[in-house]
């Protein structure tokens, strides 16, 4: 399965992601710039903020209560389809998902 990150300069990086892996871990494993994940995916840092491409946002799941609060804490300004990528797990439903990495 695959995900694509669109960097602030417009460059796209597509990488393999294992089913069940969260998209923060995948980004860190592939050295996607600006996706850090300081808290290891436990909703404590907001350093894995991404904006889900609107074409995919309906399939990427709901924003949880703590995620909602932490999105307000992220460095880049929150947008309508902002998510913490540690909270999105790869599955057949989102194979090929496109994520925009926001400019801090």
């Amino acid at each position, binding site marked *: 399965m695959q995900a694509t990150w669109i960097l602030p300069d417009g460059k796209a990086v597509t990488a393999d992601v294992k089913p069940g892996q969260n998209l923060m871990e995948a980004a860190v494993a592939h050295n996607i710039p600006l996706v850090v994940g*300081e808290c*290891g995916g*436990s909703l*404590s840092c*907001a350093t894995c903020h991404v904006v889900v491409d609107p074409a995919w946002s309906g399939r990427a799941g709901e924003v949880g*209560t703590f995620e909602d609060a*932490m999105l307000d804490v992220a*460095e880049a300004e929150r947008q309508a389809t902002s998510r913490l990528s540690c909270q999105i797990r790869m599955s057949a439903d989102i194979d090929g998902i496109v994520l925009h990495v926001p400019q801090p």
Partner: protein
Amino acid sequence: MTVWIPQDDGKADLTSHDTFAAGAPHNTFARLRRDDPMHWTPWDAGEGFWSVTRHADILALNGQPDLLSSARGIRMEDQSYEEYLARRTFQETDAPDHMQTRIKVAKAFSKPVIAGFEQVIRDLCGPILDAALEKGSFDATKEIARQLPMRMLGRIMGTPDPDLPWLVEKGDALIANTDPDFTDHVLDKMTTDEYRMMPFNSPAGAELFTYAKDLMARKNVIGDTSGVLHLILQPGPDGSVLPEHEFRNFFCLLVAAGNDTTRYSIAAGIQALAHRPELLAQMQAGEVWETAPDEIIRWATPAIYFRRTATRDFEMHGKTIRQGQKVLYWFASGNRDEDAFEDPFNVNLARSPNRHLSFGQGGPHVCLGMWLARLEVRVLFQELAKRIRSIEPAGEQRFVRSNFVGGLKELPVRVTLQ
């Protein structure tokens, strides 16, 4: 030139605070990483514990808070459940309680909000540095490293400036409660259990308890809602409100954690500059400010270990860790792991990536104040590098007597000015 060489014989007693009064026992950590990465230490003053010393293992376990709980205490010392409840902060809780409290203050400590303090920090640094540097020879921990975090904490909490020295003294007595230079009630030598329900098992905790209550009463009278103390008292998304004793524990945590850690990071950075003149030149060339703060904070590792407690039996490196046993993540060791850092005993201000563990990265309790710490370190060294032409050691350095939070408590240096 080497900044500092570990002194231990490779078999240091990790339970002994005296061990750490000579600096962290890195020869011992290196041996454990190599030969016994899940190491059992029996202890005559409490239950024994497991030591995790490899970078990769600390990261892997820290990411499993369901398996390794914070809710039985985070220090080596045992606590009764009664003591735990009386003394805990959100640092000693698991999901979801931890996040219920954390999100109340997360914004105040977030990167964009903290970035707004840069000029405040710069304005604080100027007078601190000028007063110290004009002495020529001075103790850099006392005159510089101790000063900035204290003043900044006052701004974050909304406490009156005249109270700051007293607050720092009490904060020191809490965190460095095993060092006779900081407290009359040395934890491992106490003969009374009078304070066991107080934060950090310390009489300073009792005084800070009273101070916090009075401070909030004074702020309420004048309708002052500035600072993070007001935020922590607001209801969470589930409507829950922090009980009063937990609010006061939180206050003690801020006073303690907000002071010592950044102080010892700044001190370790100055120590590095004093032993390796080329580091000052790199700073003055202005090319390392993106990476230097994290390298200084890696080099310092002020939070030496944090403890967790196993919630069920598990196996690792051929050992069986039983439910209820204590497991210590030695961040000081992980930050010198040869498998994670090239030339880990070298201070490399351009190190990138720098996946150090000083902030407890990789787990839910990652340091709330990490953006503030990085910013304070960067701005302080920018201002220092602007002012000095040289800095060198001018006497014996001394470390805090603590295996928990530690660093250089005395750092005599001599400077020449630009």
